[in-house]
């Protein structure tokens, strides 16, 4: 187990011209868990991460990694690994050369570049120029670059972008394993469902402000909705009513919507009433809806542009 380093953002404000991209933002990221940094596009996630990484100078407030400003870290690559944009590679340079350039600058053994390529599954294409890579391959290269120094803290901006479902599953296992080793893992996303199964804690941002922080379970603590498809909807409706369950009518595909319950409870009710079921499912986008509600301020204000 590693000692781990906490990431702290304290009263961070960043203005671009007259536009407030981040507004008095305060939160901490713990080691040993995967933290999701969530918010719609343009909510200030990338700006915050770039301030944490010393690429942007905050207008006010401060950021620290293990209590130290990024620019003052004695060994930045060995402390923090970051992958910000999938496009930030020279198209004419090979993935291997990109990692070797980084290793040279950081004083890391160059063989580590090949190890990282192997770890993210890019060994075969490592000597080809990055210009020919798919978005998913670039994401993997970004991850390899972030891991080059075997860092305590991992900061990834939208790492699931461009990954196919198997890639997302791979990323999930990978990040969970890194957190289990005691590392600090901060992953941003504008699509909750991408990281829903990966993150333990969330920090939700809207229009540059913090709107919610806590565990994923806390965010998901509202009542659940269950959808039921049956050839005997009237009988099912009666059975549910007898069990004092709240039926909210039919959805677009003719399924009964049952509020504030679990699939187990609805299934048991159907079984006891002898009603045949063809489908029984918990509303999968429930968490997504909470997320949208939390951040809808940003959607309502369509005038908001600027860096995200």
């Amino acid at each position, binding site marked *: 187990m590693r000692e781990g380093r906490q990431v702290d953002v304290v009263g961070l404000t960043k203005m671009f011209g007259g536009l407030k991209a981040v507004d008095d933002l305060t939160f901490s990221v713990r080691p040993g868990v995967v933290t999701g940094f969530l918010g719609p596009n343009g909510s200030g996630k990338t*700006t915050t991460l*770039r301030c944490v*990484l*010393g*690429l*942007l*100078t905050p207008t006010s407030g401060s950021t620290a990694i293990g209590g130290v400003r*990024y*620019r003052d*870290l004695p060994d*930045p*690559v060995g402390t*923090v690994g*970051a992958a*910000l*944009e999938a*496009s*930030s*590679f*020279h*198209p*004419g*340079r*090979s993935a291997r*050369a*990109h990692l*070797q*350039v*980084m290793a*040279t*600058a*950081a*004083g890391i053994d160059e063989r580590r570049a090949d190890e990282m390529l192997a770890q993210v599954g890019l060994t075969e294409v490592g000597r080809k120029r990055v210009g020919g890579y798919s978005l998913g391959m670039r994401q993997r290269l970004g991850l390899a*670059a972030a891991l080059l120094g075997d860092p305590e803290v991992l900061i990834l901006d939208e790492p699931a972008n461009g990954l196919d479902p198997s890639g997302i599953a791979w990323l999930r296992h990978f990040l969970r394993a890194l957190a289990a080793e005691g590392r600090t893992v901060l992953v941003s996303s504008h699509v909750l469902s991408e990281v829903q199964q990966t993150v333990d804690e969330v920090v939700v941002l809207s229009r540059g402000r913090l709107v919610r922080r806590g565990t994923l379970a806390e965010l998901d603590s509202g009542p659940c909705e269950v959808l039921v498809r049956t050839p005997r909807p009237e009988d099912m409706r009666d059975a549910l009513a007898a069990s004092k369950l709240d039926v909210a009518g039919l959805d677009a595909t003719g399924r009964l919507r049952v509020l504030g319950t679990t699939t187990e409870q609805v299934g048991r009710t159907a079984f006891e009433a002898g009603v045949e079921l063809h489908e029984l499912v918990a509303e999968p986008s429930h968490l997504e809806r909470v997320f949208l509600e939390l951040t809808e301020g940003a959607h309502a204000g369509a005038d908001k542009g600027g*860096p995200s």
Partner: protein
Amino acid sequence: MTALVRTELRKITSTRLWWGLLIGAVVFSGIQSLASAILAGLEAGAGAPAMPGLETGEAVRTVYPMAMFTGTYLFALVLGITGMTGEYRHQTITSTFLVSPRRARVVVAKIFAHALMGLLYGVLGLLTVLVVGGAAMSIRGYGLGLDAERLWLTNGLAVLAVAVWTVLGVGVGTLIRSQVAAIVAAVLFTFLVEPLVTFALAGIDALSMDWLVKWLPSNASSALMAPGDVMLDYLDWWLGGLVLLGYGLVLAGLGVLVSVRRDVS
């Protein structure tokens, strides 16, 4: 610091641009040298002044160091510019400053690395003109002329001048981050604005403003090569060198200051 310089050299050599520019420099130097060797000793006429013959040190210096510099310095300038602007164009500057958050050191390492590349361009350009120009002079029956007056001092200075132009490029690239804008501005200035200003202010007798235009970077470079007094009363060669170095240091220094403060988004 040496690790950072090695990093920057590696960045340059891991893409193809540097040898594309090198080929351009070598070819252009060869053509310049060949043309100078052929035209040397030409009688005055058609509005052109008489060219000194190949028996003079002045003509030999034109065939060797002057041709090399003329053929190479713009390619060296562009190499320097792209060394900086390429980082912004491809957003690799993010990775660069993440790995080395002490930005001033990165820019200083870039300047050293590009100066070394400039020296390499200069040396290879010089080899080219020695072969091409030497062959042309031999064919014309003048021999290689390698013992010409002040030839080897001037050769060395010309190589150094190319290196300084590479540094100038890095400075320009830090100040103008758009690759196209930086290259166009720098090439327009050296190829068009400077010669026109020189011609207008110094070439027209009534104005005779040699005292001003001789301080411009191209003219300071020419002074370093100690050419004949064709149109302009150049600076002393050593002063020309110092002036050129001054331009390089001022631009590079500004580049360091600007990069350290600037947001990278």
